[in-house]
Structure formats: C-alpha cells, structure tokens
C-alpha cells in the first residue's frame, strides 16, 4: 500500500488547520511526524481517516493512486489504514472483546474461530501487560491514560493494518510502559510489515525504535524532513531552531 498526501488544505469550519501539506509513505516504512503543539499533527491524522468535521478544500489523499477523500471512515479503515487515537473515546457498555470482534469481522476476512481470536487477544494483552480484566470491561471506560494507549496498540495488533497512524502512543505512559509499547509496535511491524506513521512531541519513545523518515510539521505544513539524526537535533535545539 502507498499513502500519498498532495497539497492538502484542511479546514475546521472556517479555520485552516492544514495548509498545503505533502507526504508520501509505503507499507513497511517507518515515518515519524513531529511538531510543536497546535502544528496540525492530530488534524492531519483525522483528515486522513475522514473525520466529518475536517473538510478537505484543496489537494488530495491517495491510497495506491486512488483518492480516499470522499470515502467514509469505515471504508478508509477497510483499505488497511488504522488510527491509534491520542485520546481514545470511552464507550460505556460496549465490551472490548465485542468491539474488537466486530471490528475484526469488518476489516478482514479472518474467519478464525472465536476461541482462537480470544487466545490472540489474550496473548497480545499479556505482552502489553494489560490487566486480564481490562479486556472484559467496557471499551476505554474508566481506563487510565496508559491503559487506553495500550488498548490502542492491542487493537492495532488484532486488526493488522497495512499502514498505522499512531497519534502520540507515548503520552501518559511511564518509562517502563513506553518501552513495552515501543517493543510491541516494533513486533507488530516486523510480523505484519505494516507501515507506521508515528506522531509525537518527544523523542523518548523513539529511543526504542528505528524510524527511517522524520518529518517536522509547523503551522499546518511539513517544514523539514530527514532521517533519525533530525530527532537528535530537535531534542537538543527544539522546534524553533
């Protein structure tokens, strides 16, 4: 799968939040998108996934050469795109297992027996040190910030996307949890050959990962691009340098 973003202009009502952004990535590649607060990173992720409040007024988003800007969010997900949310939504009453099983049926042709699916959930949850009772509870309801982030990665592991956009998977996590989440994302990438677009403010999670491409975003645009050395420069000099 190839994801291309061409001269993208996105508005929330009358406010332009993405101002002519270009980016391209292939399945299997590891990209990092960094930038200060308010630079438009989360807006970009939501626009890619077709959030109805984010209006694309110019430019395009292509998957394997075909525009997805008019597709509904579920159809975009079915193409193999996944968004790990910065602030996962709480859905009281809807069990994690039920949600995951429904999503599995929607995005894949995985007809594995329910028992095998449950074992896979259990195995992935264990490797993320997610408490056993958590997957039997309502989706994200009453979870701590760290638990929510781990469950996002669990969903990614179960749904096996071709390209995953992970919006700040490290925020709200302690050092040990960051290592754990980074290791799990590395494992998923290795096993599924998924492309990763990891959005973050800080370099701390990237110490445990090997990104290939780094993009710096500022005021709705990509302002710099490079390799992993760019992360070290940002770490020492900040975004304003």
């Amino acid at each position: 799968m190839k994801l291309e973003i061409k001269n993208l202009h996105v508005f929330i009502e009358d406010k332009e939040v993405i101002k002519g952004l270009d980016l391209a990535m292939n399945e299997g590649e590891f990209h990092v998108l960094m930038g200060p607060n308010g630079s438009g990173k989360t807006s970009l992720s939501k626009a890619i996934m077709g959030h109805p409040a984010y209006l694309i007024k110019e430019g395009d988003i292509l998957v394997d050469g075909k525009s997805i800007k008019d597709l509904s969010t579920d159809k975009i997900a079915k193409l193999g795109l996944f968004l790990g949310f910065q602030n996962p939504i709480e859905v009281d009453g809807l069990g994690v297992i039920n949600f995951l099983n429904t999503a599995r049926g929607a995005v894949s042709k995985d007809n594995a027996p329910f028992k095998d699916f449950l074992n896979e959930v259990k195995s992935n949850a264990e490797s993320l040190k997610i408490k056993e009772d958590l997957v039997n509870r309502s989706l994200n309801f009453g979870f701590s910030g760290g638990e929510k982030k781990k469950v996002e990665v669990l969903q990614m592991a179960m749904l096996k996307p071709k390209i995953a956009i992970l919006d700040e998977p490290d925020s709200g996590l302690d050092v040990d949890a960051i290592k754990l989440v980074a290791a799990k994302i590395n494992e998923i990438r290795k096993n599924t050959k998924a492309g990763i677009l990891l959005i973050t403010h800080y370099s701390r999670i990237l110490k445990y990962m090997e990104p290939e491409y780094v993009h710096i975003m500022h005021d709705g645009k990509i302002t710099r691009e490079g390799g992993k050395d760019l992360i070290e420069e940002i770490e020492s000099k900040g975004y304003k340098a």
Partner: protein
Amino acid sequence: MPFETSELYKRYMINLRMPESVDLKPSKEAEALAKKLSESLKIKFDLIITDSEIRSASKNIEISDAGMVDPMSRHYMPGEDKVASFVHAYAKSAIVIRVPDKQKASLNLLSVNHSPLPIFISMAVGDNASLELSEYYFSASKEQSVVAPLHELSAGKNSKVELNILHDENGMTDVGNLCKGRIGERAEVRVNMAYIGGGHTRSRANFTAAEHGKIQVSEVAFGSDGQKFDMATNVTNEKPYSIGRVDSGAVMSGKSLCVLKGFAKIVEGARGVGSQVNQHGLLLDPESRIEALPDMSIDYSNEVSASHSAGTAPISNDVLFYMTSRGIPEDEARRLYIIGFLSKYLTNISNVKAKEVIVSVLLEKLNKKTFGMVPNTDIEKFWLVQKA
C-alpha cells in the same frame, strides 16, 4: 410533600388511558401464545397468567381472591396511586409468593394477556431467605388493553431478592407497573425493570431500606413510534448504614417521550448511608424527548454519601468516528453503541435466562424496529448464554 403532588412532577405525569369498559374475557390466542412461549423461551414458568386463568406450579405461590387479602396488610392503599386504585377496583386475583425463613426460591412468571390485567403480586421473603423472581409481560393481540401489576415486597432480615421485570406489550396497551417494598435489616434487593413495549407506560417504584439494608434499582426504557414512558422511582434510606441506588436509562426515537424521575430520601438519623440517583438518556433523533429529574432530600445527617447525576445526549460524532475508524460501518456502530448503553442497565441481572430474554427483545426492536410482539427468537443462539 407527597411524591406526586409536587408541581414539578405533576407537569410531567403521563395519564394512563383506561378502557371505557373493562371486559375480562378469555381468549384462545393468549393460551396458545403462552404455550408457544413456554416452549420457545426454554424457561420453566412457575406462574402463567392468561385471560382465562392464573395457574401456578410452585409451592411458594398461592393464588387467592383479591378480596380475601387483608387490606391492612397491603403496602398500597386504595387512593394512594391511580394505578393502585385501578387494581383495587378491578383485580380479581392476588398472587402471594412466600419464601419461608432460610429457604430459597427461583420463580418465573409469564403473562400473555389480551384483556386488561389488574393484579396484586405480594412477595413475603423470610429472614435469611432468597427469592429470584423474573416476570415477562407480553400481549396476545394488538387490541387496546391495560396491564397493571402491583408488587408489594417485604424482604426479611439478611434476605436476598432479585426482581426482574420485562414489559413488551403492544402499542395499544397502557402499562402501569407499581412496586413498593420494605428492605429488612442487612437484606439486599435488586430490582431490574425493562420497558420496551406499551403505548403508555407509567412506572412507580418506592422502596425503603432498614439498617444495613441495600436496594438497587436499574430501569431502562427503549421507546419508538410515539411511545410514552413516565418512570418515577423513590428510594428511602430510613435507617443507618443503608444503601439506596437508582440507575435509570432511556433510549428514545420516533417522537417518543420519556420522563425519568428519581428521588432519594435520607431520613433524619440515618447516619453512614449511601445514596445515588443516576439518570441518563440517549436521543436517536431530534424529535424525541427525554426529561431527567433527579432529586434528593437529606433531612439531616452528617455521615452520608449522596450523589446524583443526569445527562441526555445524542450519539456523539467523536464516538462514531472512533468506532468507524476500526472499519465498523456507521449503522453498525450506532447499533453497538445503543446496545452498550442499554446493557448497562441489565448488569445487575444474575439470572442468565432473564437477561437473555430481555436482550433478545431489545435486539428485536433495534433490528426490526418493532415492539409489542413476541420475540421470534431462540435465546439459546445468543453467545451470552452459558452452555452447560
């Protein structure tokens, strides 16, 4: 101030439409339907009520002439409530359920009626005894009717009671459900009510907890096609260390209306008590309405834990975006969200079969947009049912 004389409550009170004449005629349809349901729901019914008869197959249940019940032993007095007055005026029979001290009983009641049904159900649960009573009310026809069961519960010391009530009558039926009970010392009572059918529903529940007594009421209404629900639940912490909790939920669509009135009272001297009233609604279209009116009265006490919450909203776009971002189509996401919302009010039901029947009726309404008809379903198909 008596509960329903408050101007605020009167403003939202829904009047039941009484039939012009009450004709208790037997029907073959009710008998046939009761037979079919007994088989298809795979539940052993200990009490079956049809137009022609009330029959019991349990030693815990006694059926007597309504006039033979000592008026002084009744919790509800004539004139106290309009449904109580109706039941007092028209009830032919009284169902008395007795669970002696230290005994256990698990009972199922099926009501399939065509004619109006005013009926007393008295539950006397002894000390250290337990009762699980699940009641299912369906209509046997599409004709206008009134179904008005009047429950009176006396829960002895250290007793445990679970009362599950499902109403899925046709749209022409007025449902008046009354529950009144005294929860003895250290007794635990859970009352779960699901209102799915019925054109007009008027529910009144009123419980009083003694020292260390616990009362938990969960009630949910799922309305469509102009259905109206008026639900008032009142719990009183009468003695120290008692716990009272009311959770009310409503999902409304198709110009339907639901008024939730939850009232918790902590009596003077009832120290160390816990009291909660939570009311939440989900609006599926802009033409439906949910009014949540939580209310508390704490007469005097400096050691209480009391809280109330209320909220009504449509399904948010952010929720739908989150769910659809996992590939789930929007219609299915809405359906899952609604089921999740409704299921919160069924979590206190420990009787798996009762929960399955209620879930199956809710799903039938959600999927086929119909109510008031017998669920055409085999509950064994549902994954929640634990296979032996």
